[in-house]
């Protein structure tokens, strides 16, 4: 297993996104807020002529985004034909996996369990592998419930 991973810090934790899912990493420009949408929707922004839905991963996971400084970069992931820009703390690296996907006894904590696929060993250390679909999909349920 030698898959490419995009390593990012989300709420101070090292997370890994499969590079296959990632379309690009962008500098987030002006974000147009979307009033009355769920809190984790930071707004929409334009990437050339494409409109991206900006999701703040920290808020989505139930953290306070102000606690973590942000380098204004976002990971663009297309999910079900809609492009999303995921705001994270910062991008660390692009690296390859060195081990198999594993679980940790005791789990990853309630905030993370929903979106974590498991722990993955990478060249720069262990990281939490994130399922991008889970990151968006359950959010919608939460959003409609709110």
């Amino acid at each position, binding site marked *: 297993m030698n898959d490419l991973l995009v390593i990012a810090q989300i709420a101070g934790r090292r997370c890994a996104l499969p590079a296959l899912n990632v379309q690009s990493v962008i500098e987030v420009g002006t974000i147009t807020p979307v009033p009355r949408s769920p809190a984790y929707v930071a707004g929409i922004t334009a990437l050339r002529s494409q409109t991206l*839905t900006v999701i703040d991963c920290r808020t989505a996971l139930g953290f306070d985004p102000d606690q973590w400084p942000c380098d204004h970069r976002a990971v663009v992931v297309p999910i079900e034909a809609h492009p999303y820009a995921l705001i994270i703390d910062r991008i660390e690296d692009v690296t390859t996996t060195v081990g198999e996907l594993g679980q940790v006894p005791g789990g990853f904590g309630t905030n993370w369990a929903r979106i974590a696929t498991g722990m993955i060993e990478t060249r720069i250390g262990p990281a939490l592998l994130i399922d991008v679909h889970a990151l968006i999909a359950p959010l919608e349920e939460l959003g409609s419930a709110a």
Partner: protein
Amino acid sequence: MDDLLADFVAETREMLEASEGELIAWEADPGDRSHIDSIFRFVHTVKGNCGFFDFPRLEKLSHAAEDALSDCRSGHREPDSALVSAVLAIIDRISEMVNAIEAGEDLGEGDDAALIASLEVGAAALVVEGPPAGAGTNGEPEATEPGDEDQGHAGKADAPTILRSIRLPVDLLDRVMSGVSDMVLARNDLAHRLRQAGNQPTIDGPFERLTTILADVRDAITRMRMQRIETLFGALPRLVRDLSGELGKQVMVDLEGGDVELDREMIEMVRDPITHIIRNAIDHGIELPSDRLANGKREIGLLSIAARQSGNTISIVIGDDGRGLDDAKIADKALAMGLIDKAERADMTREAILQIIFRPGFSTADTVSNVSGRGVGLDVVRDNLERVGGSIKVSSTPGCGTFFTLQIPLTLTIIAGLTVEVGNQRFAIPQSYVEEIVHASARALDFTCVGETALVTFRGARVPCVMLSDVLELPGSELSESERTLVLLRLTSGDLFALAVDRIHSHGDIVVKPLAPAVMKSGFYAGSTLLDDGQPVLLLDVMNIAEAYELVSDARLRMQLSLHDQEEAIASPTRLMIFTDFEGRRRAVRLELVERIETAPASAIERNAAGARVVVDGTIYPLVGLPDGTLASEKVRLLRLDDKATNLLYAVREVEDAAELAGAITPVPEDPMIEGLTLIDGATIALVDGHELFARYGRPAETGVKPGVLIPEGEWAATILGPLLESAGYVIMRDAGAASDALIMFEEDFEAAQALDMRFDAPVIRLREQPTAPPGAETIYRYDRNGLFAALESVCVRKRQAA
């Protein structure tokens, strides 16, 4: 072969390719029902389409296969390998025939009886050689049948045919489209930088050209995706004619709204649903002529199909004046089929029962006809529409007719939009909803609050007013109530409400893009769009907002009742538009006369002895109210007055406001142009006499005849002369062969042409480079704008007189 046939061939082939996998899977496991469904749909569609063209052989084959498959679906028959082979052989035959049709060959009188017979229960299995399932492997099954006459077609049909159109994957179009949008944004950025850098003639010229080219390309690309619904409607009269002939009915079609533009993909999406519904309407809805006469109806049934764009959806209504849907029969049938139970039925309204017809497997037809009634169709129709975010509803009055309403979303289409601002954020509203824009300070609005609902008075009626900042829970704006702008929105249900915003930004065509589901769920937005500066803005879902505030009919009815008495009390006062004319006098004109306020560049105004004219949106109107002498400003505010027959533009220095006519009008017999004087807010204002105005100056607008002018080649003509003429309402032609109303040439070129004894089929206006004219020359200095326009105008006047 016409386009319809080409479409039929392409569609059949596409479906064939798509069902190939299913065929193979079915062959492997004949008992699996899920494969039968898609193969059934294929033969069903082929059958339907052949009824429309004249292919009796094809129709017989597909009908036979459909019958057999239908039995399997309803459980009357167990599919076995013999049946599979027989169906596969028929599908192969269909594929050959389609190839023959495309090649323009005659299908001949081949005998398909053997193939059809093999479908019968207990028929001997066809011996199928080689890989039978591949629909592309032409000819193999038929090798088992001696005496087949059109064996040769398979070979011939493989020969390449001439392609007259190509089918492109929609993603490719999308990519090109977004590429062009990116280019436009890059151009805007560049334009911005160029402006900062100051004038650079060497760059500005090519840059302007780039802009023009880009605009053209953008236009073309946009049109690539858009298609008038006419293309779909075009095929319907024939379909109706053939079907009604076949069923012994007389049906008249009424098509409306063919100019509604739809995304090409959407047109493909609705093509089948519409065909299905029409087929059902003619088969089940419209009665036989004798029955119609017996029921006191006209012998000829009416089928009406209307497309309409309303806000962010396009609705297509298909109605017939037939016998209508029988809800009792539908409910009984649904009960019998186990689609609903008794308790459910008791609770269902007629409306709800009617919608059962969209459930899978439902059919009311007692007998299965050749045309419809096999239970495929409406459920598929609904699924297809829902997949693209649309919906379908049916309403029906027994004995009077049935209406199907299809709603198709407008995503990825281009609509006219109004951009408004509230709390420093911009939003777009589909222009089609906008009835009027009123400044909240207007006294006549009479802003009041009844309970929590704000009301404004608009044209004598109380209209609910919603603050956009409240709707979106944005921080209250810094503007006081009277500084806001009200956008009056007319819903498709006819309800009117006012949306208060901070200010209006701009209006123009916007490309609506879909939003992510998380954002859509909020229910306030219909899509997003990019502004010229590349900023995304949200498109408001006016209908949903109105529903959230219970402003749509049903809910509002109760409220209206309570308001009714108040409305009676408000007498409708005469309203006036107050303005200052070019002589600095305050004047008023009756508001009903004012159609709208226009702003025109001074160059669009033409003055001559006969009076002044102005070109607005390609139409020439008479213009009054201009000052003597030249205009000081580049742009002129114009009131467009309308007496329902003609239009007249009244130039004003400043538009003030609308006011109510409070006191009496004192006549002023000395000035025929003035109806009288009246007091408004303590000041005397002269009221313009509309009758006299139209009697003197009113003339029907001269539409369409934009004179075409052929201009010389070269950069000067392209960048200086061309735009000048265009802004003055002329059409610029560059192709020397084109028929034009006037030719503009440089003196040197004209002399050269004369030397060659060339003839001109239009009057020539000659330009010279020097300001001073050599004696006796009939030339105009190239920067003499007035001279040039005078010459063009006189040429055009002569032409009009000649015509």
